[in-house]
């Protein structure tokens, strides 16, 4: 293939290469070892240091479009809270969020059948009002919420009977992919009420959240890499999870990630090389044309 042909390469070949780069490792079950970084260990120990029975607010502010990236980290957070016997309060500010919460409550029912709804976890479902909801529930829960997602009164649920506001939580976890999401929970809840907060974020949003570390944000899981490292840390801390394949979703996804990233790096290098080589050829051609023109003018 000549340089000119390479420069005019139909981009659909790139798409096909990317498809194969992701599909083949998946079909071949390619996996690589992960080692948790210090940032991931901060997330792990923020939950680990909580005594059993502590209250954790889990805001899942994303929709099925981000499930592929954020689903594994939500599941890992929930498993960790269950292993620590923490009390979980689920809420979403996205109208397409309730199925996301349902997936996590199904996980609790399936893997931790000893957990009871209303006593160990409660689902407030979708709450409309974006920032206004956060503002309200942090100061007075009953100003915005009168019952759980099914309409059961707060007074009838042991977990919420004596709860006045979400400011009484011991930890806030937000897994979110936009607005309202982690940034709003940081601005209206964590920073205002000095509430320790962890968040899970898609790769595209993570750089905007890093400036909030280490205060008011205690830790962040960024993209599927963050989820995979956190899962690895969970496996180290709770070896019984090694037998559960569904507790290693992020780790499985890192095989295709690595191959696809190598492909992207190669494509960037090849593209830059082609650009550089073309630019080297261009002045010579231009120079030749100029000298020929000058000679013709002289003649």
């Amino acid at each position: 293939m000549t340089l000119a042909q390479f420069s005019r390469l139909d981009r659909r070949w790139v798409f096909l290469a990317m498809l194969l780069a992701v599909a083949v490792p998946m079909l071949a079950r390619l996996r690589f070892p992960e080692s948790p970084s210090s940032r991931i260990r901060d997330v792990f120990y923020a939950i680990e240091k909580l005594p059993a029975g502590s209250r954790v607010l889990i805001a899942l502010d994303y929709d099925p479009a981000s499930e592929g990236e954020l689903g594994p980290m939500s599941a890992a957070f929930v498993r960790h809270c269950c292993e620590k016997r923490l009390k979980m309060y689920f809420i979403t500010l996205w109208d397409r969020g309730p199925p996301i919460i349902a997936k996590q409550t199904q996980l609790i029912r399936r893997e931790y059948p000893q957990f009871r709804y209303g006593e160990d976890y409660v689902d407030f479902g979708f709450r409309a009002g974006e920032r206004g909801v956060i503002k309200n529930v942090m100061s007075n829960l009953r100003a915005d919420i009168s019952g759980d997602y099914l309409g059961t009164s707060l007074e009838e649920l042991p977990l919420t009977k004596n709860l006045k506001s979400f400011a009484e939580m011991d930890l806030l976890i937000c897994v979110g992919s936009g607005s309202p999401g982690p940034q709003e929970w940081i601005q209206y809840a964590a920073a205002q009420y000095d509430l320790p907060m962890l968040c899970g974020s898609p790769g595209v949003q993570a750089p905007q959240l890093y400036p909030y570390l280490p205060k008011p944000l205690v830790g962040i899981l960024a993209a599927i890499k963050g989820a995979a490292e956190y899962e690895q840390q969970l496996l180290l801390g709770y070896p019984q999870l090694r037998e559960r394949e569904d507790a290693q979703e992020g780790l499985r996804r890192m095989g295709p990630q690595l191959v696809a990233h190598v492909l992207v790096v190669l494509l960037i290098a090849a593209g830059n090389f082609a650009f550089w080589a073309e630019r080297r050829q261009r002045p010579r051609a231009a120079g030749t044309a100029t000298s020929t023109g000058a000679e013709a003018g002289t003649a």
Partner: protein
Amino acid sequence: MKSTTALWTFLFVAGLLALVARGVVTGAGSRYVRAVEVKSAAGEVQWTRYESVPPKALGEPGVTVSRPRTLGLWISALLTLATFSLLYGDNIWFKLAQSLVVGVAAGFAVVTGFWTMIVPNLFAKLAPDAARNTFVPGLEPGTSSDWWSLIPLLLCAMMLWRLSPRGGWISRWPLAFFIGLTAGLQLVSIFKADFVDQISGTMLPLVVLKDSGIDVWKSIRNVLIVGSVLSVLVYFLFSVEHKGLVGRVARLGIGVLMITFGASFGMTVMGRISLLAARLQFLFDDWLWMIDPLGTRTVL
């Protein structure tokens, strides 16, 4: 019909028929459910709930193929392929999938907004008894009407006045109210998290001491943080000409910004690949049964 369109339509239909035949013969692409009876405290069966179960549970009591969920699986798989087809070129299947997503999302948002916003926050507050007897049975008895809720109702009506051919200016008043309210709320909240905390987070010791001397790595990290912030601020200082020392620091600021954008690009690529991997896993695992990472059945 163009010959290429006919060819692609033929290939699409043939592929679909082959997949249906494979599904019928092997069971791939089927969803299974178990019927679970939900009983009251008195032990009476209130209703039956259908829980998804893995294919290997087939044969256990109460486990059957769920036709609606199987159909849903096939529709989502075909819509996934239709969406991917844009990468080859714009076509009617992609447009169909795109329109369906937009339409379903809009409809879902309207219905969810009505039942979670209008009903509990307006209807239940203005007429609690009527709400308890109809849509909100969990509402506490003895709740009295909250007439303050008439104000948001009035604001909503004023907002919708924009649709009227006369008096469109009325909608500007609720809009002004919402903008003022949001600005006030944002100012207070953002000031703490995005201003005060950011400044205090940058006030770091450039030399970090520990028991046995200087903590070199932490010192380097702090110098990098403080230096990067200052150099980027200098880059955005347009009232001074970027020449000499200021110019060199501003160029350093550009470098820091480039590194940030590069990290952002890398993270975005990672995110997009994750989404692609998730869709492919759905196709290979749930639909085609080509892989079985969770050990829920035999791989075909």
